[in-house]
């Protein structure tokens, strides 16, 4: 029974975004889609231990959820006002009897419809990102809250209001017409970036790196590039994700966090690096420079260093300078300071970080970064204090465990 539950949970993690997207298309409602999926999963847990796990668990669950929705819609249709609050096509052909095979293109279209719907301009930017992450990205409310550095309750409210807004504003479930596409794109890019970020350094759960989220973000990034050729930031975003993800296998070994200086670079995915570098070249040639391309260039400089000592930290610092002009964020400034520390020495980095302490006091990486620079300067008491502060704030168990063990080893 434990195995069945574990498998169902794995299927949920990997496929819920895709399944929910198609359910929304069918049902016309976020809430109904979510409800149908919960019920389908419950039914899977009830029947699979006896009937055995199906060959295609995702398709089984999709079919079961579709059936529930079709049944509910048929029951309500006679009662309901024809003017639905959402203009969806409700499928009257018999999907209830149709088994769902792998339909990658169909699912891709549904996910695109969903992501553009969630990023509709009637919603404010925060709501757009939160809603897409919740329904399509498969993130939980606490995970999204962490990515935004806001309290969970705030995020939960944001989601409730967003869904209500879609209902009330009669937002259509569609990919925007070509003329509107570009303006709608910025929020979509932000959402994909944030999904990737959560996969790259997970805020909770037992894995630091969640491959499924990174893979999903990269997949969405590819679809976006295909949908809109010639957008340099789309290409830059995809390049950035491929390049950062290329180090996945080297970053966590035996449950331990391995830094760039110590990573076994033979484990880096060279084909992902090659693709990322080529995409970045293509993007920069379009002469529409932007923040994703600059981040990709920084990532490229790491990827191209055969050994840690060969990293071009000076250029990385210069690129962060440029990035800071577009994105005056203290998180960017912190990473700029880190690059300066590596190129000009820890003191230079610490001086820059000092000015960020009020903005970033609640951000564990601020304290961890300071701690590391203090360690390099052999200011041990200060380093330990900073490490402890980081530990208080670190959310991911892999990071916490690592730090705790190190502090314990001293005691």
């Amino acid at each position: 029974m434990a195995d069945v539950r574990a498998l169902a949970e794995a299927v949920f993690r990997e496929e819920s975004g895709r399944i929910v997207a198609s359910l929304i298309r069918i049902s016309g409602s976020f809430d109904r889609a979510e409800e149908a999926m919960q019920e389908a999963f419950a039914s899977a847990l009830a029947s699979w231990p006896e009937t055995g796990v199906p060959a295609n668990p995702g398709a089984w669950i999709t079919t079961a959820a579709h059936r529930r929705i079709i049944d509910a819609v048929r029951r309500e249709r006679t009662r309901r006002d024809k003017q639905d609050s959402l203009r969806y096509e409700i499928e009257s052909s018999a999907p209830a009897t149709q088994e769902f095979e792998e339909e990658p293109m169909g699912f891709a279209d549904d996910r695109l419809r969903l992501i553009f719907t969630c990023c509709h301009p009637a919603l404010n930017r925060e709501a757009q990102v939160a809603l897409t992450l919740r329904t399509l990205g498969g993130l939980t409310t606490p995970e999204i809250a962490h990515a935004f550095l806001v309290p969970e309750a705030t995020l939960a409210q944001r989601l409730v209001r967003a869904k209500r807004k879609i209902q009330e504003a009669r937002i259509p479930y569609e990919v925007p017409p070509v003329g509107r596409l570009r303006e709608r794109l910025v929020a979509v890019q932000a959402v994909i970036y944030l999904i990737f970020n959560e996969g790259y350094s997970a805020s909770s759960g037992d894995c630091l790196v969640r491959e499924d989220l990174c893979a999903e973000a990269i997949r969405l990034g590819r679809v976006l590039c295909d949908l809109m050729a010639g957008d340099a930031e789309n290409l830059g975003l995809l390049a950035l994700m491929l390049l950062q993800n290329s180090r996945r296998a080297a970053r966590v070994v035996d449950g331990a966090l391995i830094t760039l200086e110590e990573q076994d670079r033979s484990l880096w995915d060279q084909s992902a690096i090659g693709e990322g570098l080529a995409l970045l070249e293509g993007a920069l040639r379009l002469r529409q420079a932007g923040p994703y391309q600059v981040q990709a260039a920084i990532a490229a400089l790491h990827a191209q260093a055969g050994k840690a000592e060969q990293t071009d930290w000076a250029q990385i610092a210069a690129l962060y300078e440029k990035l800071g002009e577009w994105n005056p964020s203290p998180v960017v400034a912190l990473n700029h300071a880190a690059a300066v520390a590596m190129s000009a020495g820890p003191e230079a980095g610490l001086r820059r970080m000092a000015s960020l302490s009020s903005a970033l006091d609640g951000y564990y990486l601020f304290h961890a970064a300071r701690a590391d620079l203090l360690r390099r300067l052999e200011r041990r008491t200060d380093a330990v204090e900073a490490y402890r502060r980081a530990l208080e704030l670190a959310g991911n168990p892999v990071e916490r465990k690592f730090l705790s063990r190190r502090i314990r080893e001293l005691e």
Partner: protein
Amino acid sequence: MRYMMLVYSKELDGEMPAEEAVRIRAGHAAVLQDAAQKGILQGAEPLAPTTTATTVRMEDGKPLITDGPFAETKEQLAGYYILDCQNLDEAI
């Protein structure tokens, strides 16, 4: 500074004009100089919390506060090393 060149260049085709290349290199030198001077210029002014945010372009003037996949902290400095102390009391 190849990526910096590409990021700054506004030319569609061919080589960057010599003056622009010189200007960009001079700009780089200034950046590196600043870093070497231990961040006196920009590091000195505290960033107000209200300027926090965005890895998203601020087109509608409303920025987002976000984290991001930045290796410089998450992979470079966030590793927690053993403190090389012989004496715990010295460290704590």
